[in-house]
C-alpha cells in the first residue's frame, strides 16, 4: 500500500497538472465559518494561495481581515465552533480532512507557530526550558539530557544571552524581547518546514521589534523554512517577505512579489494601504487614511467588500463581486478594474 502510493506520487498521471517539486502549501478556496447562536459568520471567503519551500509570504491586512484565521487554519488551530472547507494542503498532508489525533505529530514539528503576545502565549508556571524540552520529547523522542542540551542550543541560536540561566527562568522573569526570542526558539525546536508567525513583533517595543524581525529574517535564511508572516505593518512585510498577500474582509484581494506590489499596487485597497503608512521623507505631507471601517463580516455587502470605501468604485462594483484575476508574473488581483476593465468603465459612477 505504502509503496504503491509512493510510486504514484513519484510518477504523476500525465493528464494531471504536474505538481511542482518544491510546493509546500496549497490553499484552494479556503472558507472558514464561525458558528454561533446569533447566526454563522463567514470569516474567510475563498482564499487561494500557494507557498514554495523556503519562501516567505506576508499576509497583510487590517484587524478582522482574516489573516490570523488563515494562519491558524494552516494548522487547524481554530476554536471548536469554526468550520473549514476547501483544500488545505501542507507538505502533502490534507490538513482540512485530518483527524485531530493525526494532526498532532505535524503541529510543532512540520508546522510551528509564533504567537503575537509572548507573555500570554507561554505557560506562566513552567520554565522556558521545560516548555521547549516537552516539545522535543513529544516529537523527537529525546531523553531529558539530550532535550536540555538541544534547548540550550536553541536559546543560543536565537541569541538569548546567558542561555543556561534563562533555561531555568519562568516567562515573567524575562523581558518582552527575550520572551519572544524564547517563543521563536520553541517554534524552531523541531526544525519546522513551515513557520507561521502571527504578528510576532506587534506586542514589542519599537527597538526590540527591529531586533526580533532581523533575527527572524536571519534564521529564516539560515534554516530555510517556508514562512507565513501575518502583519498589518507594510514596513515589516517589505523587510521579510518574498511575496505579499493583501487580505480584506476574508478575501485575498491581491497577491504579488514584494517588490512589484510596492512599486505598483493594483488593487485600490493596496494603494490606499500604502498611502496610509508613515515612513521617512513624508514630513509635511498629508497622510491619507482610508475612509470608513472594514465591513461587518456577518453582513457583507453585495459586490466588492471594499467598494463602500473605494474611491474608484462604480455601480458594477456594488453589484458583482469581482473574481480573482491572474496577471503576468504570478500576480493575482480581485478587482473589476483589472478583471473586467471594459465593463467597469461603461458602468455608471456611483451617486454620492
Amino acid at each position, binding site marked *: 500500500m505504502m509503496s504503491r502510493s509512493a510510486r504514484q506520487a513519484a510518477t504523476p498521471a500525465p493528464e494531471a497538472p504536474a505538481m511542482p517539486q518544491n510546493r509546500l502549501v496549497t490553499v484552494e478556496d479556503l472558507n472558514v465559518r464561525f458558528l454561533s447562536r446569533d447566526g454563522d459568520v463567514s470569516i474567510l471567503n475563498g482564499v487561494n494561495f500557494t507557498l514554495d519551500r523556503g519562501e516567505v509570504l506576508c499576509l497583510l491586512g487590517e484587524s478582522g481581515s482574516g489573516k490570523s484565521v488563515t494562519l491558524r487554519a494552516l*494548522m487547524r*488551530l481554530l476554536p471548536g465552533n469554526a468550520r473549514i472547507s476547501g483544500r488545505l494542503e501542507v507538505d502533502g498532508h490534507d490538513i482540512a480532512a485530518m483527524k485531530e489525533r493525526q*494532526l*498532532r*505529530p*505535524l*503541529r*510543532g*514539528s512540520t508546522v*510551528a*507557530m509564533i*504567537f503575537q*503576545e509572548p507573555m*500570554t*502565549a*507561554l*505557560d*506562566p*508556571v*513552567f520554565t522556558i526550558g521545560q516548555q521547549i524540552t*516537552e*516539545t522535543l520529547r*513529544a*516529537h523527537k523522542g529525546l531523553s531529558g539530557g539530550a532535550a536540555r542540551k538541544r534547548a540550550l542550543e536553541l536559546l543560543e541560536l536565537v541569541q538569548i544571552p546567558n542561555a543556561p540561566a534563562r533555561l531555568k527562568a*519562568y516567562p*515573567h522573569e524575562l523581558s518582552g524581547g527575550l520572551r519572544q526570542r524564547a517563543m521563536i526558539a*520553541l517554534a524552531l525546536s523541531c526544525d519546522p518546514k513551515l513557520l507561521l508567525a502571527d504578528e510576532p513583533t506587534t506586542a514589542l517595543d519599537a527597538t526590540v521589534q527591529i531586533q526580533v524581525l532581523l533575527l527572524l529574517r536571519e534564521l529564516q535564511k539560515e534554516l530555510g523554512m517556508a514562512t507565513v508572516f501575518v502583519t498589518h505593518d507594510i514596513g515589516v512585510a517589505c523587510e521579510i517577505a518574498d511575496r505579499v498577500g493583501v487580505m480584506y474582509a476574508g478575501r485575498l484581494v491581491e497577491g504579488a512579489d514584494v517588490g512589484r506590489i510596492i512599486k505598483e499596487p493594483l488593487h485600490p485597497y493596496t494603494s490606499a494601504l500604502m498611502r496610509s503608512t508613515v515612513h521617512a521623507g513624508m514630513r509635511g505631507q498629508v497622510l491619507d487614511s482610508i475612509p470608513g471601517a472594514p465591513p461587518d463580516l456577518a453582513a457583507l455587502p453585495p459586490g466588492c467588500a471594499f467598494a463602500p470605501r473605494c474611491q474608484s468604485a462604480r455601480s458594477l462594483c456594488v453589484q458583482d463581486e469581482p473574481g480573482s484575476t491572474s496577471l503576468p508574473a504570478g500576480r493575482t488581483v480581485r478587482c473589476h478594474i483589472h478583471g473586467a476593465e471594459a465593463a467597469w468603465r461603461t458602468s455608471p459612477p456611483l451617486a454620492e
Partner: protein
Amino acid sequence: MILYVIRRLLLAIPIAIGVTIVCFSLIHLAPGDPLSTVLPDNATPEVVEEIRAAYGFDKPLPVQYLVWLGNVVSGDFGLSIQSRRPVLGDIVPAVQNTMILAFAAVLIGFPFGTILGAIAGYSQGSLTDKVVTAISITGVSVPHYWLGMVLVVIFAVNMGALPAMGMGPGGQSDFALNWAHLRHLLLPAITLSVIPAGIIARSVRATIADVRKKDFVSTLRAKGLSPAWVFLHVAKNAAPVVLAVCGLQFAQLLGGSILVETVFSWPGTGFLMNSAIFTRDLPVLQGTILVLSLFFVVINLLVDVLQTVFDPRIRRG
C-alpha cells in the same frame, strides 16, 4: 522562597493575636452572666462576688484578656465551669474526633468535587456541564443537618444498614480503623462532604474553564502535545486557586459542625461547643474557638506556602 515563607510566618503572628482578641471580646460582649448557670438561685451577693473574683471576672476586660492570653500561651486554658476540669482535657479529644470526621469528609468530598468540576470545566456549555452545575448548586444549597436526617431515615431507620449516632459500637468514643467504627463514620462524613464538594466543584469548574481560554493553551496545542499533557499544564495553572478553596473548606471542616455533630451525636468540637454554649461555659467556649481559629490561620499559611510550589510568580509577591 524561604524568605517568602518567613515573611508569611511573621505575618501570621498579628493575625493570630487579632484572633485571640476577637474571640475573647466576642464572648465577653455577649449578654448573659457565665456564673448564673452554676450558682444556686439563692446565692448571697457576697458568695457571687467571691466566685466572680475567683474566676477573675471582677477585673477590667483588658486585664482579663492579658491574664487569659498569658495562661493560654503557657498551655493553661483554665477550668471548665461545668466540669471543673482543665478545658484542654475536653478540647483535645473533641478536636481529634472532629479531625477524624473532617479527614473522612475531605477524602469523600474533595476528589468528588475536583473531578466533577474538572469534567464540567472541560465541557463548558454542554449538557454534562449543566448537569454537574446543577449537582453542585444542589450540594451547596441543601442544608446539611436536613440531609443528615434524611440519610439517617433512609440508611439507619428504614434499611438498618448503618448506625445513626455515636462514634463506635456501644457508644465508645475512641477510634479504630475497622468496619465497626467506619460504619459510624460513614453517614456524618458523607453529610459533611456535600457542601465542600459542591463549592470545590464550582470553583474548579470556573478555574479550569478560565485557564483553558488562555493563550498559552493554543501554544500547547500548536506544539502538538497530547490532550492529557495539555491538561497537566491546565491543572498546574489551576492548582493555586483550587488549593486555596480546598484549604478554606478543610479549615471549615476542622472547625466542626455544630449541627451535623449534634444530629449524629459525634463527640467533636461542634458537639462540645454546643453544650458549652447552653451551659455558658465560657472557658470551654473560648478555648475551643481559639484552637479552631488558630487552625484556620495555620491552614491558610500552609495553603499560601503550597501555592508557591505551583506558581513561581507568587514567590516574588
